[in-house]
């Protein structure tokens, strides 16, 4: 079971990383979004998969009666989801502002911080 999901996770990673290597900010952002999902699924699978038994203790019991899905990865992923969502929101706005100010969404044309041919150190004394 884990193996098949692992292959899907591999696909998530491959797609995310292919998008990230693009020059266009939009594609990079899509890549970041997918990367976040890929990682969450990876953590989820890493804590082993179990079908349909949510980690909730029934009203009548003090401890769960049967084997339940591993709750810890779920908690970790919840934390990670919110964090990656925050970052995505920030990046989206950043990309938008960069586009406004720099007039491009092609990272190769974003050369304000590192202008082309700027490495000309002064010589002499």
């Amino acid at each position, binding site marked *: *079971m884990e193996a098949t999901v692992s292959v899907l996770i591999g696909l998530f990673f491959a797609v995310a990383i292919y998008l990230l290597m693009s*020059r266009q900010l939009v594609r990079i952002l899509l890549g970041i979004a997918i990367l976040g999902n890929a990682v969450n699924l990876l953590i989820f699978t*890493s804590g082993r*998969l*179990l079908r349909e038994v949510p980690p909730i203790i029934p009203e009548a019991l003090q401890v769960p009666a049967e084997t339940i899905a591993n709750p810890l990865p779920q908690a970790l992923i919840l934390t990670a989801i919110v*964090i990656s969502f925050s970052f995505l929101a920030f990046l989206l706005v950043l990309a938008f502002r960069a586009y406004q100010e720099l007039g491009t969404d092609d990272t190769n044309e974003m050369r304000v911080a590192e202008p082309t041919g700027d490495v000309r150190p002064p010589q002499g004394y």
Partner: protein
Amino acid sequence: MSLIGSEATFIAVLAPFAAAIVAPTLTRLLAHNAAWPLALVPAAIFLFFAGLVPEVAGGASFTPAVDWAPAYGVTFSFFVDGLSTLFALLISGIGTFIILYSGGYLKGHPQQGRFFSFMFLFMGAMLGLVLGNDLITLFIFWELTSITSFLLIGFDHLRAASRRAAIQALVVTGGGGLSLLAGFLVIMAVTGEANMSAVLASGDTLRDSGLYALVLALVLGGAFTKSAQFPFHFWLPNAMEAPTPVSAFLHSATMVKAGVYLLMRMHPVLGDTALWTTILPVFGGATLLVGTILAVRQTDLKLMLAYTTVASLGLLVMLTGTSWEKAIEGAALYLLAHSLFKGALFMVAGTIDHEAGTRDITRLGGLRKAMPITFAAACLAALSMSGLPPFVGFIAKEYLYTGIWGGAGANYALTATAVLGNALMLVIAAAVALKPFLGPKVETPKHAHEGPVLLYAGPVVLSLVGLASALLAHDTGVLVIGPVVSSILGVPSAVDVHLVPTHIGAALYLSLGTIALGVVLFLRLDALRAGTARLLTAIGWGPDKGFDQVIAGIVSFSAWVTRTVQGGRMEVYMTMTFLITAAAILVPMTVAGTWPTGFAMPDFRFYEWGVLAIAAAGLVAVLIARTRLTAIVSLGIQGFAVALIFMLFGAPDLSFTQFMVETLSVVILALVMTRLNLQPRDHRPMAARLCHSVIALAIGAGFAGLLIQITSAPFDRRLSDFFEAYSRTIAHGRNIVNVILVDFRGFDTLGEIAVVMVTGLCVLALIRVRPKRSAEEALDLAAGGDALRKREEARV
């Protein structure tokens, strides 16, 4: 720390630093007359060390020490013996007159106070260097001399030549210092000792060690650069850009001798090996010849003296390198003589420059009437330099010839080198002492007259000491030279010094020959100068030029490296990062052989396959999306598919959150992306796409394989078992995930909400703050905006 005895060494070494602090204030109050009270500091230090002379001459040595960094075994400690006492006496004694001289020389200079400060800092550093016992302490003072000399050489900082000379000195001596540091650390590792005195007592440990050659190379790296040995000699003449007091003090009498000091100091444990007696005489001899020949070429008084300083240092290294007792006696005597006459002559040169306005020897002449005292001092010093009796320079020459000629077998090459070098030094001495003063009066830029007492006190006293130490040769030998030689050889040895040669032998003939050769060459000085000039022009390249080329080369190379690794293109950064990531996953997996071997077909239900298929389809759709809308919708599809996967595998909370987050993401994406355009086609050329696909697939396959491998192993559910057991019983919550979030691992959540809060503020800061734009930028942006609009229109 007591005020008397060897403990007071601490005070003696630290006193100049204190003087450095008060010097600017004092100078503000007293102007150039501050030199008088300030000179009391080195004078007192001189008297203190002079007081130690009788004991030291009796064979005593002191090692006062206090803990400094005991965690690393570093002590702040000094080693007072014959060798260090002589150096301390020279530094403080000559220093006294240099301080006075500085008072006169920089009279009225707006930064005279700062100058005094630098000089005192240097003096303290130099004292610490020659007295340092702990190797780290010694090294620190060694580097301090480099730093302070950097500041002093560049004192006249508005001139490019000064700045260049300062950098050059810092790089050459600083680089050598690093070599020395490594050498010291290896010595400490080999001998297990941190103190010079203990290292010196370690006998043959270093010589027998397999690391001897390394240690020697590293120590010589430090000594040769500091003492300006060929091919590192070039920085010293350039350092003449500094004001003359600096040249007189640092670059003749003291700092440049630090390297010689180190060689002499370490001779008992490093010397007298085949390597030592080969390398040192060769480099020393070469330096002697190069120095004198280059000196002849010069017409500037200071430069002539500077090159002979290089030559003298070469001579000292050569003598130390023979490891012959007599030669070392000669070296000790020459060391004393050189410090005295060279200090005096530099001050004379400075006085001439100061009073006449030039130090070009071809534009000087007939100053004897105008500057009689200076002339007299110059003559006395020059006679010592020429090696004529009755001066200490003469005695030194006698001993060194005896040493070389009569050491462990006559060495013709060394003797010839020494004779030629000394003859040329006589030429320079004569030129410096006679040319400006004798002959017809030449018009000089300033109307020359005798300088004030501050200026001539130094030359007069130093040259007289040169005379006196020769006349009192026996005492000099017992009190000064004997202890020094004992230190260098590492065994107590008494040196019987006398002015009049005890027998007519090779040394005397060589002396006479030197003088004769020197006189002949002096008479043909102009021809000689023209000849060397032609020779050097023919060669056309020297280490000095090489230095510029090296620095320029380093800078250009750096620029090339930086352009290559940091080209400014995000695409390259990302590709490199992921290439490395791929390697980081695949290489260890391959090496450790952890690729999964088998793959069992899982027993998925059809709807589970369906969800997986939707996720995959969503991913592919994002990849090939040509419009914003398709991309956003596809992104949503894969996101919801992930939520469904969470739901299928028992994570309702996650699923719920994923749905919400994905919805909000899509909404924000839609709000933001309406202005960002998605190019309909992947812009990448085929080759890049192929390369990127390979990298992406490699990483994907790597993570998949790794995950399969990890999940196929048994799992330790200890943590989750604990949470299940206590979620309700202690933490009163049935939703275990939520209990983990707010209780078991609440700290994570605290950090996480901090992230969320800051994100909100970040977005505000991004949207609300409008940059102040310069007119130029605004114009540029307006143009960019136009271009953008045109592109949009064209697409529509």
